[in-house]
């Protein structure tokens, strides 16, 4: 469908990662630069580094990479999980026992 240019621009401005305000255009640009894993896109754009840690955008980033590069979704692993897997305040580390 032919779109009005204004609408096309609007679509590219759609946020994929709301926490870090990373747009569809940002992510597509990163993929075109060769960042073709969920972790790589995260490192390049910060998508998935916010409060929700990619729980909302992670799967969408994988879909966008797959769509643009043809890499099957099976090969696009979720970004590497690190502890704490829940958002915590730095203050709690004060009393942290030695692991």
């Amino acid at each position, binding site marked *: 469908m*032919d779109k009005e240019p204004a*609408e096309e621009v609007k679509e590219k401005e759609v946020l994929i990662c709301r926490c870090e305000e990373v747009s*569809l255009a940002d992510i597509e640009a990163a993929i075109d630069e060769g960042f073709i894993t969920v972790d790589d896109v995260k490192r390049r754009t910060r998508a998935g580094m916010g409060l929700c840690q990619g729980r909302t955008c992670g799967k*969408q980033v994988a879909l966008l990479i797959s769509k643009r590069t043809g890499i099957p979704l099976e090969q696009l692993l*979720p970004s590497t999980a690190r502890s704490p*897997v829940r958002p915590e305040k730095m203050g709690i580390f004060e*009393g*942290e*026992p030695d692991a």
Partner: protein
Amino acid sequence: MEKREVIIVGAGPAGLSAAVEAATAGCGVLLIDENSKPGGQLFKQIHKFFGSQEHKAGIRGIDIGKRLLEEAENLHIEVWLDSEVCGIFDANKVWVVRNKKETVLLQGDRIIIATGASENAVHFPGWHLPGVMGAGAAQTMINIHRVLPGEKVLMVGSGNVGVIVSYQLLQAGAEVVGVIEAAPRLGGYGVHTAKVRRAGVPFFVSHVVAAAEGKDRVEKVRIVQVDPRWNPVPGTEKTLKADTICLATGLTPLTELAFLAGCESTYSPVLGGHVPWHNSAMRTSVRHIFIAGDISGVEEASTAMEEGRMAGLQAAASLGHVDEADAMIRGKAIQARLDALRSGLFGEKRKNAKESIFSAMGNSNNGAR
């Protein structure tokens, strides 16, 4: 460092069932949940469940939740609420933050991860506007907090979550302006779908959201028909007045803790994507760690409860609390109930997907012993 025989992460249907089973077998159990109440999503399931008698079919989710809680109380299971498990290290150490302030490291002989799943998002212009939310979030608002998320709701996705939440939104007093489905056919069980249709809600198959519009929140939504290659069909756009858009576009297993702990992953599109590999005993590639419920593949509360029982039983057996012959007999009975739940048009696909996970690594060196 404090020690427990079995530490269970998540007190939803899977975690609660695992706790009851393991405690019944004689294990010392600690059940941990980040919420201030146990039960997971069960207490917002005000509809009756499917299955046969032994699956508690015909009983509402909320009542199943109450029964499970009673069982757990009668067994004096130790429960930590408002407690977030932030990491699992060295295969058996669990890092917990209690009440957002106290940090505790525990050692578990066995860990059962039953963290559930999170809702999938889809993006379209305007999806960041207030008023766009997960269907599960809307269900929590109406059934737990008794707050209507909006007055005119568009439901995106016609699977069971989409149609069940649509009906409950109607019951709560909202108007559902439509249910749209990107696929050419509806996805939910007929009985749920028909109730919504009988209430006069229009269904639009092969339709997606083109854009949500509004100044400070959703005021209207444009939907458009798509062709078999998912391209918008010119001239098919419709504008609906809506202040709320609910996304019922599937769930993704919450796998962070399992992958952080080193569990091998396997991929199953039918079950929600990448999941920790597990065998039919719900044991992962890390031998201390078991999983149950949506983390092992998105299904339903009824299957989650049976998987929880399986994980609880097998964890107890692996610690010597149940003798081998007994564990085998009871395990077979649970498996038979799981197979019964995974039958029929929708169930068969899940059964096959589960079996291909079980066989994916069963013979490898990384497989659970």
